């Protein structure tokens, strides 16, 4: 009674539908088998629930649907139903002589996709294929819809919440991300998830949970990952292997989708973040690309892979001010500076680049610590270097770290010089370092130098990001008004204005662009644009005198808010990393 695997079926669905019938009554088993055979299905019968379960476990993909009786001596039919639903996620039809409403209800509650009354007629069996079909449709929709919805949610939520979270005291970078709020959000996740996308009860993958998941995946190694391993690493009570399995499946799909999208996306004018989603195991954070708005900012960094040579060019306006171009080299394979690249596992999720005020020590030696997202923009600074900071999700142990970290990790003498004397933490930019080499994407980072080692602040520009791929194109030459340039710290840069525009770019590009990814002309919203800002002149920051990272004094507070909120939202609500770049953060271009 073995069923051949699906591949041997040559006729059109539903012919050859592989059915497993479980019933302790031999008479019914014989009848059902005959009926199903007459429907041209492939039938396997089983008189014991336990045996059936074993069969299902052993030959996981050998069945399309299970029909089971409710009353069986060795195992309750509802229990079998649950097991099958959880472990194999197959549609299960229950049968019984008992048609009492309460029983039928119980069946539905336990997840039965149908409940047939005995005596079962052949015509009822003819249509069981619809359950298989429906389930497949739902799965596809759920995955897609989930992402989309996440984006929408983020968008919606963003504007409301930002204000709450926004802490303008800006004592330190860390504040930006109000833990408390985040936690609260996690609890309220449910209300945000779009019911339409939630097709079945499941664990709500909050940002933190997802981050843990991502961390675990990265730790294990994307290629070797498996639900059990992840589950063990995550060590979350109450989380089941099944939850992780389905989440992993979605994550993979997401990554591959991203990859496809990114492959097709290039825009000359904008910083594109090319994600190589293939390994993006850990990167689900939304990377927001900040787009710098100020005209004249011309540097664009596109970093692909790990070697990124970024050169920042100061915006035209301030060209005089900043002379040096910053070349970012992120060395180490892990550093992919990518604003929104959900690439390889190591990537740190950078969620958002924001202009950061000089960071505090978080960067230095922070190593892989998570950078607190601090987006601070200080529009009021005149010439202050916008510090971009991107928020970083708690990171995983990957090496990837946000740029900043990268910097700190890099024993680059150059770098050391860069920032250093600030008492305030250097503005950190960008994030995401991708540990894997195949990060292709844009690096978006705000430069932040993490090393305070050097005391020479003048040399701002030596951040070097080196990534393995040399495809990084640092397009320093182009001046795009639209693009923001990296504000590299320029020595003596005192009036570095905030040029960059941070824009949240959705980390996950929403499928088919429902979030409008604007083209480069649309500054405000090009989610894909990663703006690379590097406040080179950290020193100058100091000059500027900002002390707190979070200076959110944007002219357009809303946008900041949005940026923030979006970011958070993405973090919090999106179980899958879709962020959408909704807000036109760009407006906030701090650069005049």
């Amino acid at each position, binding site marked *: 009674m073995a069923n051949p695997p699906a591949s041997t079926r040559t006729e059109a669905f539903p012919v050859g539908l592989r059915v497993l019938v479980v019933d*302790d*009554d*031999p*008479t*019914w088993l*014989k*009848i059902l088998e*005959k*009926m199903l055979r*007459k429907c041209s299905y492939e039938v396997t019968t089983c008189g014991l629930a336990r045996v059936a379960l074993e069969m299902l476990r052993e030959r996981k993909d050998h069945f399309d649907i299970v029909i089971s*009786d409710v*009353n069986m001596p060795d195992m309750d039919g509802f229990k079998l139903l649950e097991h099958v639903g959880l472990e194999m996620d197959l549609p299960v039809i229950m049968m*019984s*002589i*008992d048609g009492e409403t309460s029983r039928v209800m119980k069946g539905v509650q336990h997840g039965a996709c149908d409940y047939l009354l*005995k*005596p079962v*007629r*052949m015509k009822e069996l003819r249509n069981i294929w619809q359950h298989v079909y429906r389930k497949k449709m739902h799965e596809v929709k759920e995955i897609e819809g989930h992402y989309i919805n996440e984006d929408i949610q983020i968008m919606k939520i963003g504007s409301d919440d930002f204000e709450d979270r926004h802490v303008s005291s800006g004592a330190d970078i860390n504040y930006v991300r109000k833990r408390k709020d985040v936690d609260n959000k996690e609890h309220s996740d449910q209300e945000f998830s779009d019911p339409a996308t939630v097709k079945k009860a499941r664990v709500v993958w909050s940002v933190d949970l997802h981050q843990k998941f991502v961390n675990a995946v990265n730790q294990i190694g994307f290629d070797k990952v498996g639900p059990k391993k992840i589950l063990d690493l995550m060590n979350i009570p109450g989380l089941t292997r099944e939850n992780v399995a389905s989440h992993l499946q979605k994550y993979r799909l997401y990554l591959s989708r991203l990859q496809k999208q990114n492959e097709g996306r290039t825009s000359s004018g904008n910083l594109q973040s090319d994600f190589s989603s293939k390994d993006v195991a850990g990167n689900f954070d939304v990377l927001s690309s900040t787009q710098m708005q100020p005209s004249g900012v011309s540097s664009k960094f596109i970093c692909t892979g790990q070697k990124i040579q970024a050169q920042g060019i100061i915006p035209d306006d301030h060209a005089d001010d900043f002379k040096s171009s910053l070349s970012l080299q992120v060395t180490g394979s892990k550093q992919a500076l990518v604003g929104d690249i959900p690439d390889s596992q190591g990537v740190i999720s950078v969620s958002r680049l924001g202009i950061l005020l000089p960071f505090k020590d978080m960067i230095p030696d922070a190593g892989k610590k998570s950078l607190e997202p601090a987006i601070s923009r200080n529009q009021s600074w005149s010439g202050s270097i916008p510090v971009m900071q991107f928020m970083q999700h708690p990171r995983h142990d990957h090496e990837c770290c946000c740029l900043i970290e990268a910097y700190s990790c890099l024993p680059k003498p150059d770098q050391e010089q860069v920032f250093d004397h600030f008492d305030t933490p250097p503005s950190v930019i960008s994030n995401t370092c991708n540990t894997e080499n195949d990060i292709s994407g844009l690096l978006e980072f705000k430069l932040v130098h993490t090393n305070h080692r050097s005391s020479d602040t003048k040399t701002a520009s030596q951040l070097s990001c080196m990534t393995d791929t040399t495809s990084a194109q640092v397009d320093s030459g182009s001046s795009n008004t639209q693009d923001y340039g990296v504000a590299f710290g320029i020595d003596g840069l005192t009036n570095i204005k905030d040029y960059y525009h941070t824009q949240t770019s959705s980390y996950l590009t929403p499928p088919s662009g429902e979030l409008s990814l604007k083209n480069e002309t649309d500054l405000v919203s090009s989610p894909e644009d990663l703006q690379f800002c590097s406040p080179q002149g950290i020193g100058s920051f100091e000059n500027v005198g900002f002390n707190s990272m979070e200076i959110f004094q944007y002219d357009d507070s809303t946008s900041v808010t949005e940026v923030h909120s979006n970011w958070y939202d993405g973090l919090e609500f999106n179980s899958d990393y879709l962020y959408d770049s909704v807000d036109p953060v760009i407006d906030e271009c701090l650069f005049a």
Partner: protein
Amino acid sequence: MEYSNLRRQAAYMKKSLFDQGYLDEQFYQLEELQDDVSPNFVEEVVTLFFRDSARLISNIEQALDKCPQEFSKLNAYVHQLKGSSSSIGASRVKNECTLFRQYCDEENLEGCLKSFQKMKREHAVLRQKLESYFQLLRQVGPAEKATRPSM
């Protein structure tokens, strides 16, 4: 015209089984399932039923003997029998099972015992009648296909 007589007899027998409520619609379903692949399908199924149901009845009998107060257990056994009898359309047996279960719910042992006796009887009668029927059918010959009575 022996053949057609036999056929007529068989048809009549079947009809009366239906008329007297021994069999219901499900029996026709079985007949429709019979085909070239399984030319004796109905008889095979019926045989299987009686073998299995005999076991179930014996279980109930034992339970009534040894632990008559365990109504839930009795209920479960009878439930099984009920399901089984529905497979071939053994309508009288099935109905008696329903009655038995009601007595179980009421914890009416007396009622249970009486009902059980009736159940056993119905089961036995049906078995006999169907055995005769199939015997007749065999005589009529394999060419005979099951058809619904036109009357």
